[in-house]
């Protein structure tokens, strides 16, 4: 007996009794939940585990896996061909192998070295100090930075210890003034942190932090204004022209204005503070561009709440606040989340440009720096960044999709 997910409650009592003896694995329910979480790819696996039409599931898994793999292989092929054709004096389109090398710092065995001009010979055990990783590659650079940081902290500890020893020695001699001075020195050195270069992975985190700030501020502004637009036609008439006017503006045009704002509002903070002018400029640009989809969708959602639901509010004489909080907002949540999903997509897209302009230490800055380097290795790193940017964008979209599905009821008009 395969219990359907939407089993009506008429026979729920029987089913409850039937299920009671132990928790049974319900492949249908698991598959349904996976779909809801945007992990639809895995639902045939869940069904397969539950022996639910195994042949069909295997077929589905094969199709879902093989087809994308084939398409990806074709893409790699076209890319390789293009890479071998498009070459200028100084750069070329990096090949897939070169891009792989730019990320990992290691050549793929049997394929030879992807940058034969930069090293002599193919089998040379290069870069012994970085576990054999090319320090110009992303991972090689990160490893080098890690090693540098370690070195820094070792020597720092030594120095701190030295001053502490001196302090105790001075104390024994009875020179408390000197001891105090040495102790102060020890403290001063202990408080310092390693100010190395940002690695690619640091920059990913900074980018995520930037979009989080921009997106949260955008949401906090857009939803209340959107709700006001939705419930008050007068407010909507008043504000709509402004929305339509500012919605299509490019992030590059907003940048100088936001820059003025942050320059006015933020003094130069210590370098480990999050109040970095560049970060907030970048977040501000993201905010200004990702505001609109949420705002407009919220307004539409609030304005189009089911009449029946509003009638319920009328009959019950719900107050203004209760009406908004209990009826209007929940009813428009699906559209609000559609807006948020669009917003985070726009925000992520804008972020790279904003990082470039503001010189925020995010992925945009990484792309910009590599572009300024201008050699093939740097271009290969840009390709890696493109994949990472795409992957993170996809991931963010999926997270929002899950939220969107969680707040959407299968049957809104009940």
């Amino acid at each position, binding site marked *: 007996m395969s219990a359907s997910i939407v089993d009506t409650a008429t026979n729920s009592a029987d089913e409850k009794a039937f299920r009671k003896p132990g928790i049974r694995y319900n492949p249908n329910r698991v598959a349904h939940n996976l779909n809801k979480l945007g992990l639809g790819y895995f639902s045939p696996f869940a069904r397969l585990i539950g022996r639910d039409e195994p042949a069909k599931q295997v077929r589905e898994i094969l199709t879902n896996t093989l087809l994308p793999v084939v398409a990806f292989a074709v893409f790699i092929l076209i890319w390789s061909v293009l890479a071998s054709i498009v070459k200028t004096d100084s750069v070329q389109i990096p090949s897939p192998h070169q891009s792989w090398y730019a990320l990992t710092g290691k050549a793929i065995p049997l394929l030879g070295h992807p940058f034969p001009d930069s090293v002599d010979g193919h089998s040379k055990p290069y870069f012994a100090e970085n576990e054999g990783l090319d320090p110009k590659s992303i991972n090689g650079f990160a490893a080098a930075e890690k090693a540098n940081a370690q070195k820094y902290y070792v020597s720092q500890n030594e120095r701190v210890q030295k001053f502490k020893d001196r302090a105790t020695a001075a104390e024994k001699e009875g020179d408390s003034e000197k001891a105090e001075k040495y102790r102060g020195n020890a403290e001063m050195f202990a408080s310092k942190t390693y100010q190395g270069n940002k690695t690619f992975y640091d920059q990913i985190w900074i980018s995520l932090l930037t979009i989080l700030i921009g997106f949260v501020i955008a949401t906090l502004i857009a939803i209340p204004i959107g709700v006001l637009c939705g419930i008050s036609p007068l407010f909507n008439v008043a504000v709509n022209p402004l929305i339509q006017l500012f919605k299509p503006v490019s992030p590059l045009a907003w940048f100088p204005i936001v820059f003025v704002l942050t320059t006015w509002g933020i003094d130069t903070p210590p370098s480990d503070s999050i109040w970095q002018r560049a970060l907030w400029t970048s977040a501000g640009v993201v905010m200004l561009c990702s505001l609109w989809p949420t705002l407009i969708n919220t307004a539409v959602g609030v304005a189009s709440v089911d009449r029946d639901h509003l009638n319920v509010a009328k009959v019950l004489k719900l107050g203004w606040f209760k009406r908004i909080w209990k009826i209007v907002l929940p009813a428009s949540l699906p559209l609000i989340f559609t807006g948020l999903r669009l917003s985070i997509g726009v925000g992520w897209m804008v972020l790279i440009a904003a990082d470039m302009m503001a010189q925020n230490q995010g992925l945009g800055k990484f792309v910009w720096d590599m572009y300024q380097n201008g050699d093939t290795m740097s271009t290969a790193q840009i390709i890696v960044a493109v994949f990472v940017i795409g992957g993170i964008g996809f991931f963010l979209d999926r997270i929002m999709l899950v939220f969107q599905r969680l707040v959407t009821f299968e049957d809104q008009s*009940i």
Partner: protein
Amino acid sequence: MSAYFEAINLGKTYKTPSGDAVIVDGFELTMKKGEFVCVLGHSGCGKSTVLSMVAGLNEISTGSVILDGTEIEAASPDRGVVFQSPCLLPWMTTWDNVMLGVNQVYYHASKQERNQIVEYYLTVVGLADAMKKRPGELSAGMRQRVGLARAFALSPKMLLLDEPFGMLDKLTKFELQQVLLDLWNRERLTAMMITHDVDEAIYLADRVVMMTNGPAARVGEIVEIDFERPRDRRELMLDPRYIEYRKQLISFLEERVYLLDSPSNKTLAA
């Protein structure tokens, strides 16, 4: 006869580009306290318009409605409405859907008392096991049970039912009519129910009000249903008066269809 509810010269007119569209005109009805009236008529004749005006969800164009000595103005929980689609809020559980109204009406009561009220009505309509479920998990019949519980839990002065069982299958309909009658027998609320089901009207009502066809629909005929309560459906069916009532109601409706179709009537109505 003391009139508890009174609709005086009630009318609804919509302004349209091609002049006024008179939907309801001169609707007159008085009801005693605790009376159950069914309003019967063809679909589109303006039954629901009358009900939504009484509920305060639709503006009254002419005339007035007086309930318990005061003229009604806006919608209020003193008139509990059961809608055709149950209109439950899908993001709330059954319990919360009923509690939403109870909180409004019994704001002075303690949390415990309010819980008791919600629990009582949900149990009476047979949903003791489904209190924590969301409407999406319930069948159409069960949703409408929640709708009934929600309306009765308000302890309204008057109950307004807008074809509440119109979208249900015949068997579920019978069940819910029974639930409605059981509830009504306990509380004897003054009730106005819109329906186009003749059997439903005879089974439930003290009086059946038949409306003429629109435009400008009004009360055409009123039939007193003289069965004593509590009623039993099977006994009713065997009663010779049942056939008589049925004939009376259907002939009125059929006559209207005939009149509507005849060309002379069309020119008259225009």
